[in-house]
């Protein structure tokens, strides 16, 4: 019995090393201006805030990822984006799995309060995230997604809730 307890204690101690490394990296990122890979970053501070009319968003189709910060809570993450028919879209996969729902909390937060700031090529844009759950427009949007990324996103996965898709509309407040 004593040996089992000892083995368990050793295992827990060894497990503490990667847990500490991951926790420290995650906490460190929270104080940074923006995200890195998977851990949320802090508020997007650097970069000029875009004012005036929306740009031609097609330039994002050549950019792998953008930085996105919600206003509430004011954490940021790096996400995929695509332009389709002059509109900007962001989405989150894995929403059908438990691990995914635990990992990706921003879609739920964005549905509650869609106000967001994007930073693309060093310029910040104020946007409002509006979830799209159905409609014929999904065909074109998901085609744009799969053309750009190695993604299996399709109309059915959005309608079933496995993928949460948002239009990044202009923000007026």
């Amino acid at each position, binding site marked *: 019995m004593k040996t089992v307890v000892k083995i368990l204690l*050793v295992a827990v*101690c060894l497990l503490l*090393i990667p847990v500490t490394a991951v926790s*420290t*990296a995650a906490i460190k*990122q929270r104080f940074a201006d923006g995200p890195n890979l*998977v*851990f949320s970053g802090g508020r997007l501070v650097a970069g000029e805030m875009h004012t005036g009319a929306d740009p031609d968003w097609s330039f994002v189709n050549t950019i792998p990822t953008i930085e996105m910060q919600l206003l509430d809570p004011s954490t940021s993450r790096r996400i995929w984006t695509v332009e389709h028919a002059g509109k900007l879209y962001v989405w989150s996969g*894995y929403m059908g799995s438990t691990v995914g729902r635990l990992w990706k909390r921003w879609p739920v937060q964005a549905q509650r309060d869609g106000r967001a700031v994007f930073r693309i090529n060093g310029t910040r844009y104020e946007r409002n995230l509006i979830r799209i759950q159905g409609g014929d427009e999904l065909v074109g949007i998901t085609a744009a997604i799969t053309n750009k990324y190695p993604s299996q996103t399709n109309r059915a996965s959005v309608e079933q809730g496995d993928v949460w898709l948002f239009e990044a509309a202009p923000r007026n407040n």
Partner: protein
Amino acid sequence: MKQFYWVIAAILVITVLAVLLVPGVDDFVEATFQRYLGRAAR
């Protein structure tokens, strides 16, 4: 066993300092975590 705990404590302190202060270590930790997380979420 007591010595083992001290070694673990020292490793934990070194881990925290390395992630905080050594350039690239936080990126490595995050990239590794992302790999496992992505696999688990599928």
